[in-house]
Structures are given as C-alpha cells and as structure tokens.
C-alpha cells in the first residue's frame, strides 16, 4: 500500500510517498490510516485540516481501503 503526500505533508514526512508492507500494521480504513500517520508524524495532527483522497476523490473516515487504491493525503489546499 502506497500513500501519496503533497505540500506541507510531504515536508513533514520528508518524502513524497509512504509504503506500507502488506499484512499486519497496514491500515484497513481511512480512519486507521489517519491514526497510524498521526502517531508516526505528530506534526500532521497540527495542520488546520487533513483530508484523505482515494482514487482522486475525497473520502470519509469510514471507507475501507482496498488493494490497488490510489491513496493521497491532502493537507489544507491553497490554490488560486
């Protein structure tokens, strides 16, 4: 499982992707993914907001992650 990172999330984590090996410890839902990331990188929890996108769509915490999903962390957007 691969998580894409952008903007300040990329700076906090220090790279543009996080890999989770299959099996134990791999988050099964968006909610778990958030918890896993925020405990590994506490500065993510200090952002104004942090959304998650799966397959290029904003998703809710209840969503179950499937193999092959394109998952991305969306820190506060600031286009325009």
């Amino acid at each position: 499982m691969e998580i894409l990172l952008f903007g300040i999330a990329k700076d906090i984590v220090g790279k543009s992707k996080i890999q989770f090996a299959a099996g134990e410890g791999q988050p099964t839902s968006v909610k778990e993914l958030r918890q896993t990331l925020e405990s590994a990188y506490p500065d993510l929890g200090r952002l104004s907001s942090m959304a998650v996108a799966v397959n290029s769509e904003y998703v809710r915490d209840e969503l179950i992650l499937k193999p092959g999903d394109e998952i991305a962390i969306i820190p506060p957007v600031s286009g325009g």
Partner: protein
Amino acid sequence: MNKTIIEIVDSLEVSKVYAELSDPQSGGICVFVGTVREVTQGETVVALEFETYRNMALKEMEKIALEAVEKWQLNKVVIRHAIGAKKVEDPVVVVGASAPHRDACFEACRYLIDTLKERVPIWKKEIFKNKTVWVSAHP
C-alpha cells in the same frame, strides 16, 4: 459540444480566455484572474511556488465547472491554473463563465474561484526573504 475547458499549465496565457468564452448565445462574459501580490500581511513576497495532485485537481476542477454550468445554465466555462514558481504580478489562475445574462456569469465566476480555493488540491508556498510558508496549513 464541450462547454468546459479545464487545464493545469506551467505558464498561464490569460488573454486567450476571452475567445474561449465567446458564444453567440451569450450576452455576458465574466473572468477572474488571480495574480501574485507583492505584499501579503505586511511582508514582501519574493516568489510563490505551486504544486498539485494533478489527476485529482483536474477531476475536481471539472466537477466545479459542471456544477456551475448546470446551476447557471452557462454556455462556456474555463478553469485554468498554473503551477511551479511564480513571481510578483504573474497570473496564477483564470476562471471564466459565459451566459445569456450578466447576473449568471458574475455569480458563476465567483462560485468557480471560491470553490476552487476550497476543494482543488493545489498548494501554495510563499517564499519570503527569510522563510517559506505553506499557505493555510496551520490554524
């Protein structure tokens, strides 16, 4: 015929938007251009740097354009955003709507830029003399 033009580009050519929005059924065209301002909150900006999650950004921009077309019965919509390094006075985003009457094109144009700023995954880093700041990242 496709009513929407959605693009993420390295360099924004603003003036062609008028030809893109022109339409025999339209009486009004409204365009907003966002540009890099020299001073923000009292500090002088040296440059801005934009990055995007391109696939998703294009998808969100297309959704916003179609929402506006449906809500205001627009004839044409353009949403075009630049990424990469931008300096003061450079255009960063252009949004525009063309409609039979001016109420619709003004309201739609405002909706396009406001909703883009809320939803489209594009991030702006402000580069000052002694620091860099990801805009809106922190409360």
